[in-house]
């Protein structure tokens, strides 16, 4: 066990010593700075409410109703906004002002960038050892190949979590600098599956990033497998990124077939069950998707393990 810790230490050190990793982190910084600047200047942030916020909301609702009577186009949006305002008034939840928390929550799409970076790391972590020829040095130690593979897989997950933490902290700081911080954990009202619900912003950040991690986790494992089987990082990164992008299109293309539900990408977005959007096929449930994900994960890991532990390491 102590050995496994040293191995993970080695692997994580190798990831962070490389310049390419630092370049990735510089990209993250630039991206967050860009997004922050964009939302600062675009000014579409929520209105601010004073102490008398209930009266302000009532006034807003009246204005919205008037607008609906004048133009037909505003219909849906305005009804929903009125409902939401009423919900705030009834449940005595003051609408939160746009702040660092909201900024972090809104930018949960940054998680696909984390996926991309983690796929790059996962695609290289086995293949690069072959490319550098260092695999030979790695495998002639008193450590089983399985342990070495495990240490590499865990290190990829550590990289993903560290990068996620970096993105969260950095975007919170950027948000705090530009929009300020309104309390430790403001309450917010969101529409889920057609129903309005109150929850806290931290809860929402965790669930939105959390659900997106499912996709990250599966695609990373996929890249890791290709890396272990084909010993080629470009191939691993290419196929994983392509599938990540094309996954949903593939699923919608075959949406009318029964077997589509067994495709990985029909199951990676679990928010379809909570947001009211609904899965590709009506018979699918959250439990079904989780089982499919577990089966895929086991297959990917078994294939990586077989390729890594059973095959000869001969000249390249």
């Amino acid at each position: 066990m102590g050995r496994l810790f040293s191995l993970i230490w080695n692997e994580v050190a190798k990831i962070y010593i490389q310049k390419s990793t630092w370049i990735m982190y510089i990209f993250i910084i630039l991206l967050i700075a860009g997004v922050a600047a964009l939302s600062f200047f675009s000014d579409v942030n929520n209105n601010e409410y004073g102490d008398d916020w209930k009266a302000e909301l009532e006034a807003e609702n009246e204005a919205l109703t008037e607008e609906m009577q004048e133009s037909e186009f505003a219909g849906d949006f305005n009804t929903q906004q009125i409902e939401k305002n009423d919900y705030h008034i009834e449940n005595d939840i003051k609408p939160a002002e746009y702040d660092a928390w909201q900024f972090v929550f809104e930018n949960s799409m940054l998680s696909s960038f984390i996926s991309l970076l983690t796929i790059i790391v996962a695609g290289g972590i086995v293949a690069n050892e072959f490319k550098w020829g260092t695999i030979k040095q790695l495998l002639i130690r008193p450590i089983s190949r399985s342990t070495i593979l495990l240490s590499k897989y865990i290190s990829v997950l550590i990289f993903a979590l560290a990068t996620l933490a970096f993105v969260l902290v950095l975007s919170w700081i950027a948000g705090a600098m530009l929009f300020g911080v309104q309390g430790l954990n403001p309450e917010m009202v969101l529409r889920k599956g057609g129903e309005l619900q109150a929850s806290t912003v931290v809860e929402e950040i965790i669930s939105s990033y959390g659900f997106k991690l499912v996709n990250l986790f599966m695609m990373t494992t996929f890249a890791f497998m290709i890396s272990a089987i084909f010993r080629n990082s470009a191939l691993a990164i290419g196929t994983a990124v392509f599938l990540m992008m094309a996954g949903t299109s593939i699923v919608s293309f075959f949406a009318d077939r029964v077997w589509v539900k067994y495709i990985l990408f029909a199951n990676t977005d679990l928010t379809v069950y909570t947001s009211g959007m609904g899965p590709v096929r009506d018979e699918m449930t959250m439990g079904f998707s989780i089982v499919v994900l577990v089966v895929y994960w086991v297959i990917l890991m078994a294939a990586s393990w077989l390729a890594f532990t059973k095959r000869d390491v001969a000249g390249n």
Partner: protein
Amino acid sequence: MSETAMELKQLKKKIGSKEIIKGLDFEIQKGEVFGFIGPNGAGKTTTIRMMVGLMGITEGEVVIQGQSVKSNFKKAIQEVGAIVENPEMYPFMTGMQNLKHFARMTPGITRERIDEVVGLVGMENAIKTKVGRYSLGMRQRLGIAQALLHKPSILILDEPTNGLDPAGIRHIRKYIRRLASEENVAVIISSHLLTEIELMCDRIGIIKNGEMIGFESVNEQDADDDGSRQIAIEAEPSDKAAELLKERHGIDVEMKEGFVAFEASKTFVPQIVTTLVNEEVLVYRVEVSKASVEDKFFDMIGENVIG
């Protein structure tokens, strides 16, 4: 007296339907430096890859200090330090970072030990430089340092002289001799250049087409016992010298580049010279050399055909 450090038992390797290694059978003793010689494609690297578990063994066994590589890999490999083919290291890390990386993979390697091996291979000045900037010879030295970290009882070096300058080779040769004699390490050195490793080996095994075709002792004492030496005499007239040798001593000679060349015991040389001088043959030079392993090597492997 000598103990077996490594034993190959009917070791075979098949890739597809092609048999690359066709049943190797030999032992290497502790404290012995074994030269593993063969032309390109003979199967040296393949054999070494099986010894260290990088390639699966098709048939037979490799036993290291009593432990089978096949069934008890961890115990067996713990005794081995190796460079397989090229001394590859992480180019983006310094020499020291590389050594620490590999040190973490084996229990019980101290910081002092790391500094010690750096000193042994004479890399103190370059150890904080990134390996990407190393010359081949520097990487070779770092590779040897890495292989010695855990004080292995068997050192396997695939073409270690590749890329080393003469000073580097001399340095490594001395060091390998010392490891063998003082620390009783068994050393296996592969090469296709016999001359480069002849001087550091006790014994040489010659492999061709996946088969061992001979073993040669290069030990000084063995050569003395056996007594056979290559003798070349520059004499005038040379045909008279040849005649005399045939008549008086029953030696068949060859004429090589103006020399009268033959094989005989070293103790025989004074008598021969006396004979020649008494018969008024002018003797300009007498060269006595060990029966060259190189000649035998070429005799054994035949023409230089890779196959």
